[in-house]
């Protein structure tokens, strides 16, 4: 056993060396004379290789100590299930009360807004990827369409945020359908490639259509949202939120308002997703994910099923996008790169493909984690990658891997991924 584990760990260390030697060991810096100089960092490489070696040994030792994986006892599964039912209300309560909790400042609220934006995007993409099973790598395109829709409508025509919000959703949905048509016959990797290209095309158009979008300089001076016509101007004054309610003018009002706005938008996304899942349309999405040919045989209209999934997913991204624009006051194509699509997709996959609460937790862990490890600078990506790999090793079906049937006779029973393995034949 032991020599085998050692051999394994040495191999891991070798692979780590092969990876880290060029990536970490050699670094080009701008030298004093302005020329590039090559800096060597073999010490760091040694630490990383050592970590990989030790980590592999520890993993093997842990596996050996744990022995054969035991099937979970039903009592334990039951306990987990009961605890799981508490997680959602608990998270919701924390989310609602966050602005008034002691210790919550501007920074915490901004982070909360960011997390909630990704929760909403995750729930939106979940309709496309998690429910309908259509792998979309260009989701950020719809986020961009929503953001630019609001920014341009507001700055050009002076339309208010509340008018633009649904418009942005509709426009994004329209683009979702536009993307949907050419990819109707595609599945899996082919679909992924086309959606990826679509995301890039939208970004490049935004970048190059300077007369409309102001190109790489972006759109600035995007109006901030109002509360039923009341502004959140810092100085208070007539017609402002603070004045109307007789409050001391404070910049935190706007932040709190934005926080509740995105919380409400995210919750609406959630409620609509949950509702739809129990409707014929939602069931058709799930059936489509499971087996397209069977869907055809059952008389499900594949075209409308796919297009509605694309349109609805895109609509929520568009709404989130216009929220993003109003919050930032400034947008540029830089905010809508592929990495955004990748992060949103990672949230959906890590969350367990189709699980609403899993996606919320995954967004919290990933976006929150990004912030917590901000000090790590360039190591952040490494830590991020490691966490993702670990989650996928420990919970291959995502954080919440079970799927609750949308219908049951009598008591709703959960079919957990741990209990029943996929059968064949």
């Amino acid at each position: 056993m032991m020599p085998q584990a050692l051999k394994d760990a040495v191999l891991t260390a070798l692979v780590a060396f092969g990876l880290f030697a060029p990536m970490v060991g050699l670094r080009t810096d701008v030298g004093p004379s302005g020329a590039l100089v090559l800096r060597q960092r073999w010490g760091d490489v040694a630490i990383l290789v050592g970590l990989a070696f030790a980590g592999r040994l520890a993993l093997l030792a842990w596996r050996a100590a744990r022995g054969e994986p035991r099937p979970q006892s039903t009592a334990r599964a039951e306990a987990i299930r009961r605890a799981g039912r508490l997680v959602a209300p608990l998270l919701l309560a924390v989310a609602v009360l966050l602005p008034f909790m002691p210790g919550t400042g501007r920074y915490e609220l901004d982070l909360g807004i960011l997390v909630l934006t990704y929760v909403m995007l995750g729930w939106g993409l979940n309709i496309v990827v998690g429910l309908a099973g259509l792998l979309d790598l260009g989701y950020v395109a719809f986020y961009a369409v929503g953001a630019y829709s609001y920014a341009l409508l507001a700055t050009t025509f002076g339309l208010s945020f509340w008018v633009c919000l649904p418009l942005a959703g509709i426009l994004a949905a329209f683009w979702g359908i536009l993307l949907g048509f050419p990819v109707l016959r595609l599945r899996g990797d082919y679909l992924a490639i086309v959606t990826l290209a679509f995301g890039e095309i939208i970004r490049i158009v935004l970048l190059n259509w300077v007369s409309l979008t102001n190109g790489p300089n972006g759109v600035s001076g995007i109006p901030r949202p109002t509360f039923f016509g009341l502004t959140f101007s810092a100085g208070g004054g007539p017609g402002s939120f603070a004045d109307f309610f007789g409050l001391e003018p404070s910049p935190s009002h706007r932040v709190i308002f934005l926080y509740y706005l995105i919380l409400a938008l995210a919750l609406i996304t959630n409620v609509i997703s949950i509702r739809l899942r129990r409707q014929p349309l939602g069931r058709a999405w799930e059936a489509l994910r499971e087996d397209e040919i069977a869907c055809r045989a059952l008389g499900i209209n594949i075209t409308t099923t796919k297009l509605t999934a694309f349109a609805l997913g895109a609509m929520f991204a568009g709404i989130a996008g216009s929220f993003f624009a109003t919050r930032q006051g400034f947008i540029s194509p830089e905010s809508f790169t592929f990495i955004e699509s990748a992060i949103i997709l990672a949230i959906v996959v890590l969350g367990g493909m189709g699980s609403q609460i899993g996606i919320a937790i995954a967004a919290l862990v990933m976006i929150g984690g990004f912030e917590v490890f901000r000090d790590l600078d360039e190591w952040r990506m490494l830590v991020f990658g490691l966490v993702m790999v670990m989650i996928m090793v420990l919970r291959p079906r995502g954080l919440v891997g079970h799927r609750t049937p949308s219908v049951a006779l009598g008591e709703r029973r959960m079919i957990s991924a741990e209990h029943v393995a996929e059968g064949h034949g």
Partner: protein
Amino acid sequence: MLRVDAVSTGYGAVQALRDVSIEVAQGEIVTLVGANGAGKSTLLMTICGDPRARTGQVVFEGRDITRLPTHEIMRLGLAQVPEGRRVFPRMSVLENLLMGAQVAGHDPAPLLHQVFALFPRLQERQTQRGGTLSGGEQQMLAIGRALMSKPRLLLLDEPSLGLAPLIVRQIFAAIRELNEKEGLTVLLVEQNANQALRLAHRGYVLVNGRITLRGAGRELLAMPEVRDAYLGGGH
């Protein structure tokens, strides 16, 4: 009830059916036997409009359905149990069954009752995921799911595929029961010619996309060509 009239079709340059004509009358069980690759599945799929017939006509209950889109054809009162069962693996048995009733839009409760009466196994396992059922149970589920749309004509594509003889007998008994008690018309496609032709009122033999023989089920079974080609020596 169903008339396939001189239908030819294929995939791209591949010609899968040539001038195929078959007929299924109300209340019949009609079996179509043919070797692997003869075009059996293609024929059932063409009836459902996917792939579409290149020439010829498909008429269901007096209505020309040759050019209708698949999802509309499937609402007219025919249902298909596709080859390889294709149950929804992550959905529960109950959800699978309800998917069958969804498009028809009627109350699923009485049909659910009927399916559970026909296959009590499905009732026992209604909360289990489709993908974790045994092969025989999956076949029952696939048939049950098709029945949930309350079809008058059931198209069955190789229901015996990969199943133990005992299970095959159960499945075939269920088909006969549906036909006799509920008056369901059945078009059954099989490689397993022996039992399938025994079950059938009439049968067709499909070779390389052409119908070569037709007749009463037991008549076909007695023909030396059929015996040699589809029953092997061992039966």
